[in-house]
């Protein structure tokens, strides 16, 4: 009703209300400023003059190896802090113009903040951060998150809330390990992973779409089911036949010729295994198909206004079921990361909550594949940072490093509300 009022200028609008204006939201600029100043003071003050930080970067070029750079900590932190302040200033400017700042702003800001933290953390320790391996490790850790977030996107856009990503990852990991190990062929494992995820997706669709059970309930319970099932089979069938099931196989690493030689980025992006490349393809494909294709238009119609979709002859529930299964398959493929991609045997509950983080990444990314991958990379980076700094022996307890992405998500979810919109009919059964 209110939107209709708001948008009903059938005749040229009389400039009615310049005397009253919408209050501007200053939340984001304030947050940026506080973070920038906090970082500047916190890292700057505790850095002693003359201290230096070592950063080592792999060039990707065969002959050069990984040269180390020595940076003056204080100066670098100040420069980075000023960059952050400038970005915060830009945010103030945009807010005062009631305009939105692009997604690049938080991304660049975050990178600057993290680098200054890194420099501060390793200052004066004479130990170089392996910058390249930090990034490539982060990318690898974010693989299940990206697949999980994509699965979330697909399901939510068609109107089904997928809280069962965790279970889908775990099922994918399990089947990939079992098949890979039984056949001795990691490729077969990779192929089977999506099947397991799809099966969980099919259960989700059955209960949520056909029997109208609350989507969140189904998702949570399916996670328990998959956990129980895989743990049970692990302790019985797998443990009883170690000869067959416990020789982990691993997908080979495939450096892409030429591309992997690009300095810095090459080794990070193009010296990975095939699952990572599949991830690139999946992100690009979903990004385009979700918003530009017939499939995407129809499935999003089911998630936004199912009745409207029905009246133009789109079978809403069939579309929902199909795409929920597809989403499950995507997450299942991501599950292959834990076993055949990482070269590990299956372990109980080895997805360890990644499915929930993937869900958070999807929401942080505003229900879009592009945003989801950025958020997933952030989580992956924080995870890997904790590993890397643990080696250096930084004063900050590792638990706090591990906590960081979760806290970032809490703040982001609290701050982003109202700026991104979930599909209108998600979680609502269509009983047409």
């Amino acid at each position, binding site marked *: 009703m209110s939107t209709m009022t708001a948008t009903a200028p059938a005749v040229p609008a009389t400039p009615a209300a310049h005397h009253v204006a919408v209050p501007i939201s200053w939340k984001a600029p304030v947050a940026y400023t506080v973070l920038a100043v906090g970082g500047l003071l916190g890292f700057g003050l505790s850095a002693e003059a003359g201290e230096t930080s070592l950063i080592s970067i792999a060039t990707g070029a065969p002959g050069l190896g990984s040269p180390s750079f020595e940076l003056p900590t204080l100066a670098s932190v100040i420069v980075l802090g000023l960059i952050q302040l400038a970005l915060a200033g830009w945010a103030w400017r945009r807010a005062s113009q009631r305009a939105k700042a692009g997604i690049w702003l938080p991304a660049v800001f975050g990178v600057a903040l993290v680098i200054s933290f890194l420099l501060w953390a390793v200052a004066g320790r004479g130990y170089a951060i392996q910058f390249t391996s930090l990034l490539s490790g982060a990318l690898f850790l974010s693989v299940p998150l990206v697949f999980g977030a994509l699965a979330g996107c697909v399901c939510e856009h068609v109107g089904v809330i997928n809280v069962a990503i965790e279970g889908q990852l775990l099922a994918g990991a399990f089947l990939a390990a079992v098949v890979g190990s039984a056949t001795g062929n990691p490729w077969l494992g990779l192929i089977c992973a999506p099947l397991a995820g799809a099966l969980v997706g099919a259960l989700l669709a059955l*209960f949520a779409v056909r029997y109208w*059970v609350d989507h969140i309930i189904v998702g949570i319970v399916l996670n328990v089911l998959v956990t*129980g099932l895989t743990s049970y089979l692990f302790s019985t069938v797998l443990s009883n036949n170690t000869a067959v099931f416990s020789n982990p196989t691993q997908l080979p690493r495939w450096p892409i010729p030429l591309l992997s030689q690009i300095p810095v980025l090459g080794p990070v992006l193009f010296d990975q295994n095939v699952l990572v490349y599949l991830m690139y393809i999946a992100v690009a494909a979903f990004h385009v198909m979700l918003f530009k294709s017939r499939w995407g238009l129809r499935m999003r119609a089911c998630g936004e206004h199912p009745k409207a979709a029905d009246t133009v002859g789109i079978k809403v529930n069939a579309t929902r079921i199909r795409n929920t299964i597809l989403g499950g398959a995507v997450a299942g493929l991501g599950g292959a990361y834990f076993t055949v991609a990482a070269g590990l045997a299956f372990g109980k509950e080895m997805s360890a*909550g990644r499915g929930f983080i993937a869900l958070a990444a999807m*929401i942080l990314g505003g229900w879009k594949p592009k945003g989801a991958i950025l958020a997933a990379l952030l989580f992956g980076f924080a995870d890997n940072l904790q590993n890397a700094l643990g080696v250096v022996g930084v004063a900050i307890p590792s*638990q706090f490093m591990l906590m960081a992405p979760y806290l970032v998500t*809490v703040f982001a*979810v609290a701050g982003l*509300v109202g700026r991104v919109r979930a599909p209108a009919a998600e979680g609502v059964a269509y009983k047409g």
Partner: protein
Amino acid sequence: MTTAAETPAVRAAANKPSDQPSRFRGALAKAFNGSVATSVLAVVVALVVGAILILAADRDVQRSAAYLFARPGDFFGAVWDAVAGAYSALFQGAVFNISSSYTVGQFFNPLWDTIAMSVPLIFAGLGLGIGFRAGLFNIGAQGQIVFGAILCGYIGFSWHLPVGLHLLLCLLGAVVGGAVWGFIPGFLKAKTGANEVIVTIMLNSVAGFFLGWLLTLAAFRKPGSNNPVSPAVDATARFPSFFGTAVNLGFVLAAAAAVGVWWLMERSTLGFRIRAVGANQDAARTAGMSVAASTVWVMVIAGALAGLAATSQLLASPEQQLNADIAGTFGFDAITVALLGRSRPLGTVLAGLLFGGLRAGGYLMQASTGTPIDVILVLQSVIVLLIAAPPLVKAIFRLPDPERRRQKESKRAKSGLAAEVAA
């Protein structure tokens, strides 16, 4: 469209007094459609699924299956042995133990274990149930238990107080710890609209890491231990147990909490508002109720109850000390308990007892027949899934389901050939 949809309902309701066929038939239909029947049948299906899993993993069954056609008797004998063995161990571990019946008290020892096991599930389930009825998906019981445990445990092992007072303060600590951790998502939801599902999931992990960090500190570390465990709680703070059994004051408190929750939801104005907000937020707001206040209250109460779930680990269990796994999976299991109990206090107590029994029996089953306790998770989830989808249960048992049939008929008429799609 609204008018079209509204009209039949209007007319149908207006016609109602005239079309009450026989009261008897109504009662019969009710029994079939009733939730009791659905629940029982759901448990039956779950046991069948469990049996299949047990068989799949049983070596004797596998071996005899290889010569199934030569000697079918072997196979079916093995099937019977495996299933009956596992389930009778499950039952004996949960209710009473036939073989070791020296005294009546010992005879029912497993039942006392079941009751003890159910206490944390009941506490946390009660809290989650309030949330569900208020329309909040609180997935955060896990973290709330952790924070309840931190405060309760700290008071328990580092303060040295007289009997009674010490226990009281420990309980209070559990309540406050859980309530604080519940307050955060409630407050964020009320103030910013932050989705409570995401926030509580995140806070579960944060709580886990926080506890992990605390256990690295000297103040929380058992002297002389290299493991991340705290000192044991003082004897002054422990739950008195009844007649030397596993049942202790915790269960009495849980039962009292159930009564309290019933009173809160059915007989208090706060509960009235919570229910109204849960059922129809817009109408509640129009009636002058504060949705934000209701949200915060619900999360605080749910957190406090979840915090109390920690007490049965700290003040009664054999370890009585904080460790990283103090919350186990109680927080998640409690979700299924609340769902199975349909968010009602009595239902939650019964569901808690059922799952407590499965857990208690599961240990014996694992020890005596080698069937891993993980199968219990499968049983639990199948039960909850089926109970949430009564039409599916009816379809499995080919029971009549009037509503579904009407729909199916109209669908069939619509497509002309959709009949074979029916489950």
